């Protein structure tokens, strides 16, 4: 290409010619030459853009400020002896703390399981055509989302003040089959679990309901027309599709519940936070033990985040991977 060019080019053919001779006759082949010149893939070397890039002074300034802050933070974390990192390391795997962690995991898992099951029931109820059935689900959600969890926890803990005896039997003064002392039945653990699970159910109900609503009605019609029963349609068509909408917020709920379970420390349940509190009440190493607990919370929430990603992919078999990449890119752009 290029050699052809130089052959055609009157300038290279007669390099000694003075520039004044650039007459209209010469500029015509000059003009027609450009399109063919770009076909070599790089374009005309004279037209390659070598512009001075835009400056982003504030972006750089922000980066410098943040770098300085991080360095200062690290420096103080290393040099300030009151962090007592050795104490953190010592307690991180201590039996009390690990037992506390297991208790936290147990509370989270059980409250989430009960909450999800109850949430599904509530979601189905709120879709009922019977006003009393759907209304009572709405009322439940209204009540448990409208009052603070901490208040609910203390309430359940003190339920014996309201009902000293809890009985199984026919209501309105009928025969009683079994009766329990509320103080014995509602241990701190029961109260904590009850509080967390009942509260979680209200949130899960909304999530499940949103998932069920997200399935287009045409999917139900197609399943019905094929001859599927309601149960088959729900199990094979509605729930798998609803899961796409249900899984992401459920993952968030689990992570949130794991952290919220620290609230039951007010009921003296030896979960992760309360176990740490027991230790520092004795040793006065408050900060190191709170750091110990935080490390465990962070570790578990990180693991849960990864699991959530796996589950989301599992329930969206037809998801567009490029789409995900685009979202991630957009996110990154928004953050930088």
């Amino acid at each position, binding site marked *: 290409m290029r050699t052809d060019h130089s052959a055609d080019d009157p300038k290279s053919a007669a390099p000694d010619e003075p520039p004044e001779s650039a007459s209209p006759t010469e500029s015509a082949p000059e003009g027609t030459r450009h399109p063919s010149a770009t076909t070599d893939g790089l374009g005309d070397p004279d037209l390659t853009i070598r512009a001075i890039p835009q400056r982003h002074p504030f972006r750089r300034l922000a980066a410098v400020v943040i770098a300085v802050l991080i360095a200062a933070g690290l420096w103080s974390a290393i040099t300030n002896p009151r962090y007592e990192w050795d104490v953190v390391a010592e307690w991180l795997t201590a039996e009390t703390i690990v037992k506390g962690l297991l208790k936290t995991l147990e509370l989270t898992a059980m409250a989430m399981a009960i909450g999800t099951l109850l949430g599904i029931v509530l979601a189905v109820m709120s879709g009922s055509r019977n006003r009393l059935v759907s209304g009572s689900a709405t009322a439940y959600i209204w009540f448990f989302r409208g009052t603070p969890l901490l208040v609910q926890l203390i309430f359940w803990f003190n339920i014996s003040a309201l009902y000293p005896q809890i009985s199984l039997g026919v209501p309105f003064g009928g025969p009683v089959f079994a009766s329990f002392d509320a103080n014995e039945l509602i241990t701190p653990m029961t109260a904590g679990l009850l509080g967390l699970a009942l509260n979680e159910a209200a949130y899960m109900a909304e999530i499940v309901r949103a998932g069920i609503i997200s399935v*287009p009605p*045409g*999917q139900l*019609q*197609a*399943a*019905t*027309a*094929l*001859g*599927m*029963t*309601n149960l*088959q349609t729900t199990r*094979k*068509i509605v729930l*798998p*599709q609803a899961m*796409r909408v249900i899984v992401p917020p459920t993952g968030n709920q689990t992570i949130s519940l794991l952290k919220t379970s620290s609230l039951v420390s007010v009921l003296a349940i030896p979960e992760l936070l309360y176990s740490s509190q027991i230790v520092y009440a004795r040793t006065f190493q408050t900060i190191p033990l709170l750091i110990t607990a935080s490390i465990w919370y962070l570790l578990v929430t990180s693991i849960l985040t990864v699991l959530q990603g796996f589950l989301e992919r599992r329930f969206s*078999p*037809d998801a*567009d991977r490029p789409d995900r990449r685009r979202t991630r890119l957009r996110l990154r752009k928004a953050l930088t």
Partner: protein
Amino acid sequence: MTTQPLVVAEKVRKSYGRNDVLKGIDLEVRRGEVVCVIGPSGSGKSTFLRCINHLERIQSGRLWVDGSLVGYRQVGDRLHELSEREVSRQRAEIGMVFQDFNLFSHYTALENVMVGPLLVRGEPREAVRARATELLRRVGLGDKLGAYPRRLSGGQQQRVAIARALAMRPKLMLFDEPTSALDPELVGEVLDVMRDLADEGLTMIVVTHEVGFAREVGDTLVFMDGGVVVESGPPADVINNPRQDRTKAFLSKVL
């Protein structure tokens, strides 16, 4: 038995609240017959189709498919509502193709075709897979078995939907405006498949705006308006010599 019509509708009425959608439909469909139903939107033609497989409940009149009452059992002169399972069994005999395809979006093309026979009929998986593959090949999608619906064009989705309905070996196929949601250049591929089915002798009721298809493939053309059958007969007669003014007015708009 075989001379008995496959579908019989007798004074079928349907209303939503005060809104009467069907005001007494009488219709007979013979075995192997292709009936095309045309009419302006809101004329009740889609609703009527959905009554035939009991997706919609009728308020009065009688509907029989293959000799049995749709959705009810007659004991003496009283009607008893069929159980969910019995209604499902009736529906399984009737294939339906929707305007918006309604493919199951979490299943591949092959899984969409397999799910009916597997779940509803409980047929063995390998046999179902073989038949589903064969059906998809027949509608020209042998290379799209593993594709999810969102990866398919509208025309391809509708052909999968037809294969899904055929997998149940229906004795009657209902098409609810099968080409209305398609881009014009994709209409042909779906109509071709439907033409083949008609040639094979499948009984079909087709609600459509494709008057050309109705004329060419249909045995009977039914013109509905305002919840009643205004006119019906051989397609060429109805299209070329409509007797009713309403039919004339409608045809002059769509032709």
